């Protein structure tokens, strides 16, 4: 996939940081206001998808290769499971909020509510990496109807 025009590239260069920051904000303040890991993760994935669309696949894969996204995806899933197992180990209950029970912080502050922000971060990372991977799969490989009516998968570069 090749990039787009210079107008799109310039706008993307300015806007991508703000989209990324907004995603982080939505994830980190998920326990204080509307939002959370899923919405923030989708927004972060949006910023990388914008990069891919504007600058092309090669530029975006230098920033976040699909291998790295794969590892992030798995690591975030393991982090979420680890929070659950820590709760099981310390409180005897799966997903027990052990941080809040041991060290209760002041409410309505950023560092409050124990494991909930950590879970939000894990889910946000997971969703961002997963959606970026789905987009990479869908944009690199395309299903093309061949002349004999069969579907076949081709890579984008071979087609163009």
């Amino acid at each position, binding site marked *: 996939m090749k990039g787009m025009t210079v107008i799109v590239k310039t706008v993307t260069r300015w806007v991508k940081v703000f989209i990324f920051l907004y995603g982080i904000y939505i994830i980190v303040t998920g326990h204080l206001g*509307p939002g959370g890991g899923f919405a923030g993760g*989708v927004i972060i994935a*949006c910023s990388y998808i914008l990069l891919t669309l504007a600058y092309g696949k090669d530029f975006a894969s230098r920033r976040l290769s699909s291998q790295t996204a794969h590892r992030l*995806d798995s690591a975030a*899933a393991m982090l979420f499971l680890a929070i659950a197992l820590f709760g099981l180990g310390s409180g005897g209950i799966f997903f027990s*909020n052990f941080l*809040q029970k041991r060290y209760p912080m002041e409410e309505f502050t950023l560092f409050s509510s124990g494991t909930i922000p950590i879970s939000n971060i894990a889910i946000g990372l997971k969703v961002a990496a997963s959606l970026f991977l789905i*987009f990479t799969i869908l944009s690199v490989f395309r299903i093309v109807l061949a002349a004999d009516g069969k579907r076949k998968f*081709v*890579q984008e570069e071979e087609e163009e």
Partner: protein
Amino acid sequence: MGIEVYLLILLVFLIVGALVAVETRNLLSSVISLGAVGFGLSIAFLFLRAPDLAIVKIAVEVVLLIFLIRATIGRDVIPGTGHIHWAGLVIICLLSAGLFVFAYHAFGSMKAFGSPIIADVQSAPSNKYLAEGLGQTGSANIVTAILLDYRAYDTLGEATVLFAAIIGALAVLRGTARSKRGKQK
């Protein structure tokens, strides 16, 4: 004018958009009307005072539109046959009428809009969550508190489903493309 009127207008818009998405011949216009339905649904969530859901819906809708437009652009128009199957039409009409009658009776037995059932049933778990959620979890957002503390096991299941979906899509698409490339070499 109550909130129900706005919701009814939105619902009519959603149904019309969904019908257009199903019936239109052009794949791209189908995708775009699907996007209109999604954004209308997020506005409906805002009317129902569910900003969490509205944010998720808007973000997912944007990404989904990009996915679908990217996947369908430049694709051939798939024409319908133009032939109407009368037996199928009659069955669809009968099923729709039955569904309408059932839904009419089901909605008649429900409580009025805006009066939740937890106001009457004091022993409902939602009341306990709303009363003790802040003290027990320390989270100001009760939706997040329920999703990631009280019902975190469900969220783990959701994350597992997403993980399995990614692995499945990667395995299917990548495997086919590799075998194709191997044949060419």
